[in-house]
């Protein structure tokens, strides 16, 4: 049967329509069960791969090597995690996960902090001051939205390489710091700060820096938190740029590391790959969970 999106085609087992948005008075008993089933299906779809990875990381390499997909915990968890954390892949000169995690953390944090600092300062300038060429600068920033890292990757690499920053943290981080998105978000937020508040501060005697520190920054805290989460995950998940600019294992990030570990199909130690993956998941998850309350607040409400 060809796909057809008329609601009449969505039937529950008992033949009645199974759309959950039915008006309240007419709600057949099966609806609740069906909606919950759909929700459960969604949860399983999202959670199952993670569960498989989690379980896979607790078995020895032979189990997975035989093509089994274990759904229950095995007995090698500690061993796998310790090996990955301390040594990495045992079969070649691999980088231990601890080093890669450290590199990723440094990169993600510095990119995040750098982006936040630069964008909040430039947004402050663009939103609160009138100076010659203000709109020019604003549009220049705006236009860079059209030029993500992937588009300008070769010239950027050329510049970084000419500056001798290949295989360094600077080379890894600096080109990713400029952020039009964050600048624009902060600018939009700043424009919602009432003029009278600015004027009240002027009359109270607060200069521009003082106003920034005492009023703008505290008011932006939830926005900063929300952007911190988004940018940290962005930084942590960087792949293409680190792949290009790092060749030395000293500055290898965890995302690159995972890809390298998979390598040739035959000798991949899947148990270690999965342990590494689980560990790579943890920092972004931790950031999201820790900042969740602020994150949601920053996206949904403004304190004014």
């Amino acid at each position, binding site marked *: 049967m060809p796909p057809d999106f008329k609601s009449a085609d969505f039937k529950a087992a008992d033949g009645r329509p199974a759309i959950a948005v039915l008006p309240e008075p007419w709600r057949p008993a099966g609806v609740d069960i069906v909606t919950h089933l759909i929700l459960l299906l969604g949860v399983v779809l999202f959670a199952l791969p993670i569960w498989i990875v989690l379980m896979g990381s607790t078995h020895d390499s032979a189990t997975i090597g035989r093509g089994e997909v274990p759904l229950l915990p095995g007995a090698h968890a500690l061993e796998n995690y310790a090996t990955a954390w301390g040594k990495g892949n045992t079969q070649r000169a691999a980088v231990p996960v601890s080093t890669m995690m450290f590199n990723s953390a440094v990169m993600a944090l510095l990119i995040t902090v750098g982006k936040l600092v630069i964008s909040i300062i430039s947004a402050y300038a663009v939103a609160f001051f009138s100076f010659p060429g203000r709109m020019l600068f604003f549009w220049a920033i705006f236009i860079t939205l059209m030029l993500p890292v992937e588009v300008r990757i070769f010239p950027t690499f050329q510049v970084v390489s000419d500056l001798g920053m290949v295989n360094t943290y600077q080379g890894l981080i600096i080109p990713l710091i400029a952020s039009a998105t964050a600048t624009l978000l902060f600018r939009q937020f700043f424009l919602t700060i*009432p003029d*009278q*508040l600015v*004027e*009240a*501060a*002027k*009359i*109270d*005697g*607060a200069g521009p820096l*003082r106003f920034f520190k*005492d*009023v703008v920054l*505290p*008011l932006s805290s939830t926005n900063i938190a929300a952007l911190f989460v988004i940018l940290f995950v962005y930084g942590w998940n960087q792949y293409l740029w680190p792949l290009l600019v790092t060749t030395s294992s000293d500055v290898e990030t965890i995302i690159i590391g995972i890809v390298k570990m998979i390598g040739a199909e035959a000798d991949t130690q899947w148990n270690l790959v999965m342990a590494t993956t689980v560990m790579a998941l943890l920092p972004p998850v931790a950031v999201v969970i820790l900042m969740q309350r602020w994150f949601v607040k920053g996206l949904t409400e403004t*304190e*004014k």
Partner: protein
Amino acid sequence: MARLQLRGVRKSFGPVAVLHGVDLDVEDGEMIVIVGASGCGKSTLLRIVAGLETATAGRVYIGERDVTAVEPAKRDVAMVFQNYALYPHMSVYENMAYGLRIRGMASNLIEQRVQETAALLGIDQLLRRRPRELSGGQRQRVAMGRAIVREPKLFLFDEPLSNLDAKLRVQMRAEIRRLQRRLGVTSLFVTHDQVEAMTLGDRLVVMNAGTAAQIATPMQIWERPADTYVAGFIGSPAMNLLPAVLEAGGRSARLEATGLSLPFADGPRPGPAGRTLTLGIRPEHLSPGPGGLTAIVDLVEPLGSESVLHAHLADGTQIAARLQGSGYSEGTLGLITTPDALHVFDRASGLRLERSAPA
């Protein structure tokens, strides 16, 4: 505590001239209310005094000091804004202390001053709260407190009562007036509300299209409006302005609408017979009676002890009357006035026409 002087203050935003030269002298401790319709430049004038706008021409003196080019922070003024402009992330205490802290005052002195001011305004229970936890009236008080605590030379109020409900507005109005008298701080108060203006001001500045149409005490403005704009702006319902012509001898005028001749009580007006005039009669100076205007009443608004009648004359000229008592009905009604209630204006210029100097 200081005098405020404005000398020929002009302001243009690009090609648009907003203020056309305003002169004003505010005495020490005086409360001046700047009143006018929206767009008359009253807020711009206040902002120029605050230093938030720069005058295109003219000078501003606060306490004999020329502050025309001085930054707002260094003018020693405090301002209460229409939407209060409290810092949302600071407590009431911090809101009030912020200006003092920036000025480098010792924190024990700040504490003392804030406590005193809060007690004065009855907000000492609220010092730990954030602005969003306060009602409109409480925010208003905090905004006042933030101004008072600074002990400035000049208070500036930019329509501070317009966000309050009617009852609270009346209450805060009286409170502002009492506080201002008690503290004796020279104050400028901008409003579009004529009742606020009449009740608050020692003197009023009635602004019209970027000029000060009249600067005088509320009663002077009510009794002797300088032109037809002021006459129509102050008073509720607005003064009836009726076209008329001067009669020979200058001692009376004939209404164009009805041909009724009205004598002037205080003396002749200059000019030839037939000079075009505008006669002003306040609605409260009309009373029912024969031999005057014949009005066709089309709406009666009973207000309890008195009634407002909206009517028109035979030729369609709108007229309003505020009469004692109630029980009026729609239909034809004779209205009379007394000669001393007449305001005479030149029709071309709109200016008040005084009696000619005794020869």
